[in-house]
C-alpha cells in the first residue's frame, strides 16, 4: 500500500506540474455547466416566453408534480428542475474525457519517456502500479466532477426559480454525481489503462477507452427524449453493473499487463 501511495503521490505531483492536461476537461465541464442554464434560464429571459407555457414540457411538469420533493415547485420551476437534472449526466461525462487523456498515457507515456524500466525494477507490484495510475487520473477527475457540481448547484440556487435547487439534492441526483459518475469514470480509466498497457500508441488507448462515453451519451439522449427515466431502482442496477465491470477490468488489467513484453517488444 505504501508503494501505491508513493507512486500515486508522483502521479499527482506530475499533474500539478502540468495542469494543462486537464484544461480540455475543465473547458468541457464549463460548457456542460452553461448549456442547461442557457436553455432553462437565459433563453426564456431573452425571449420573454416561459418554458412551462410550451406543450413540449407537459411531461416534465406532470413528473415533478408526482414527486414529494418537487411537488411544491411552480410549473416553470418544475420544467427547470427537469432540465437541470437531465443535464447532470453531461456533468459526469465531461471529466471522463479529461481523465482519459491522462490515463491513456499512463503506461505508454512512461514507456515512451523511458521511465518505465527503472520503475519496474523496484519492488512495485503490477496491482500497485496500475492502481496508482488509475487513481492518479480518477482523483482529479472526481474532484472536477464534484467541483462542477458545486458550481452547478450554486448556479441553480441563484439563477433558477426558488426551490429548484432541491431537485439536485434528491437521492437520484446525488447518486448520479457521487456514485454513478465516479464508477463510470473509473471504468473508463481502467479500460484506458488496460489498452495503454497493450498498444504502442497512446491515441489508440484514448480512443478505445473513450468507448465508455458512448453508452453514457446514449443514456443522456434517451433521457432527453423521455425514453428513460433514471429511477432509484434503475440507478441501483446501473451502479451494481458498473461495480462488477470495474472489478472485472481491474482483474483483466493485472492479467494482461505483461512486464516482459512491455520492456522487450515495445520500441
Amino acid at each position, binding site marked *: 500500500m*505504501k*508503494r501505491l*501511495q*508513493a*507512486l500515486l*503521490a*508522483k502521479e499527482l*505531483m*506530475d499533474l500539478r*506540474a*502540468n495542469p494543462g492536461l486537464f484544461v480540455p476537461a475543465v473547458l468541457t465541464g464549463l460548457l456542460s455547466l452553461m448549456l442547461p442554464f442557457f436553455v432553462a434560464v437565459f433563453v426564456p429571459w431573452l425571449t420573454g416566453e416561459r418554458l412551462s407555457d410550451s406543450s413540449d414540457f407537459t411531461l416534465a411538469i406532470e413528473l415533478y408534480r408526482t414527486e414529494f420533493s418537487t411537488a411544491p415547485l411552480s410549473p416553470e420551476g418544475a420544467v427547470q428542475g427537469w432540465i437541470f437534472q437531465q443535464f447532470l449526466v453531461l456533468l459526469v461525462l465531461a471529466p471522463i474525457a479529461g481523465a482519459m487523456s491522462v490515463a491513456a498515457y499512463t503506461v505508454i507515456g512512461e514507456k515512451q*519517456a*523511458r*521511465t*518505465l*524500466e*527503472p*520503475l*519496474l*525494477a*523496484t*519492488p*512495485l*507490484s503490477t496491482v500497485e502500479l496500475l492502481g496508482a495510475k488509475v487513481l492518479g487520473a480518477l482523483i482529479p477527475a472526481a474532484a472536477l466532477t464534484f467541483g462542477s457540481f458545486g458550481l452547478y448547484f450554486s448556479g441553480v440556487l441563484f439563477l433558477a426559480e426558488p426551490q429548484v435547487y432541491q431537485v439536485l439534492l434528491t437521492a437520484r441526483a446525488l447518486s448520479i454525481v457521487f456514485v454513478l459518475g465516479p464508477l463510470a469514470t473509473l471504468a473508463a480509466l481502467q479500460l484506458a489503462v488496460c489498452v495503454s498497457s497493450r498498444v504502442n500508441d497512446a491515441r489508440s488507448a484514448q480512443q478505445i477507452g473513450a468507448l465508455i462515453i458512448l453508452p453514457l451519451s446514449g443514456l443522456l439522449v434517451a433521457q432527453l427524449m423521455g425514453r428513460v427515466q433514471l429511477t432509484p431502482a434503475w440507478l441501483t442496477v446501473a451502479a451494481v453493473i458498473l461495480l462488477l465491470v470495474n472489478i472485472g477490468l481491474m482483474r483483466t488489467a493485472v492479467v494482461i499487463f505483461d*512486464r*516482459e513484453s512491455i*520492456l*522487450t*517488444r515495445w520500441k
Partner: protein
Amino acid sequence: MLSANNLTRRFGDRVAVENASLTVEPGQIFALLGPNGAGKTTTLRMLAGLIQPSSGSVTMDGEAILRHSAARIRGRIGLLTEAPGLWDRLTVRQNLTVYARLYGVPHVERSVTDTMRLFGIEDRASQPAAQLSKGLKQRVALARALVHKPDVVLLDEPTSGLDPESARDVRELILGLRSEGRAVLLSTHNLDEVERVADRVAVLRTRMIALDTPAALRARLFGSRIRITLAGDAATFVPHIEGAGISGTSSDQGMILASVDNPSLRTPQIVRRLVAAGADILSVVPDQPTLEEVYLRLLETHQDGHGPAPAVRRAGPQDPPQHS
C-alpha cells in the same frame, strides 16, 4: 552474491543470450562487454529480475530470482538503465523521494538528502529534471539507483553520451561503490572505462566468449611483449631478432614489437643481438596490449559467437563452468 547460471533467453526463434554464467562478488566491479545486440541489456534485465530467463537461473545469495521472489529481491538491486529515465516535470528531490518510498527506505527525507549530498546534487534539489544537463541527469539516475543502498548495482552504459568530465565523475562514483563493498556489474561499450575500473571482464556475444581479469585476458591472448624503439628504420633489424628464435615480431618505422615467453631471460638476448647488429636502441619497455586489442581479438576469434577460444579461459575461478 549475484550469480547467473547458464542463462538462456529466447524471443521467439531468436536467441538473445545463450548459456551465460557469471558471478559478481561484493567489492568487485564486473564489466560486461559486447557489440550491439550481443545480449548485454537482456542479461542485465534477467539479473535485475525484470525478465525471466528461458532456461538457467539467477540467484542472489543462493536464492533464485523467480516470479514470486523477484519483487523482494529487486529491493536489494539497484539498476541504472541506459537512459536516465527521470520524470522530467518532477524536481530532483521529488524523483529521488518517490523511489526511496518505492524501495521502502526508512527516514526518506534524510536518506534522500544524504544521497543527494553524496552525489553532489544537493544544490539541484529543487530543479525539475528536465532542466538538468545530460551528465547531471545521469548522476541523478545513479543516485536514484542507489538511494536504497542496494547490495548489487547493475549499470547499463553508465557513461554513454557523456562529455569526458561527466564521464570521469560517473566513473569515480562507480569506483566509490566498490570501496563501499557493493557488487557492481557494468555493461558498456566503453573499453577505456572498463580498463580504468573493472576487476573482471566478460565478453558476451550471445554466448559468453571470455571471462577473466583484464590482465589474465591480455596474457592469454597476447602473451608478454616488449616494445623496442630504435633510431632509424626498425624493419632491417627484425630478422636479427627472429634469428634468436623469437617469432611474433612486427615493426613500424622506428619501433619493434616482439612477443616473448620469458621477458627477463629473452630481453637481454634481444638487446645484445640488436647492439651487435649496429642498432641504436633508444628504449626497451614491456608492452601491454590495450583492452581494445584484447576485445577485438576475441571478437575476431568468435565471429559467429560460437567459435572456439583456445587462448582464453572460459570462466574465472569463481564462475560456474561454461557450456560450449
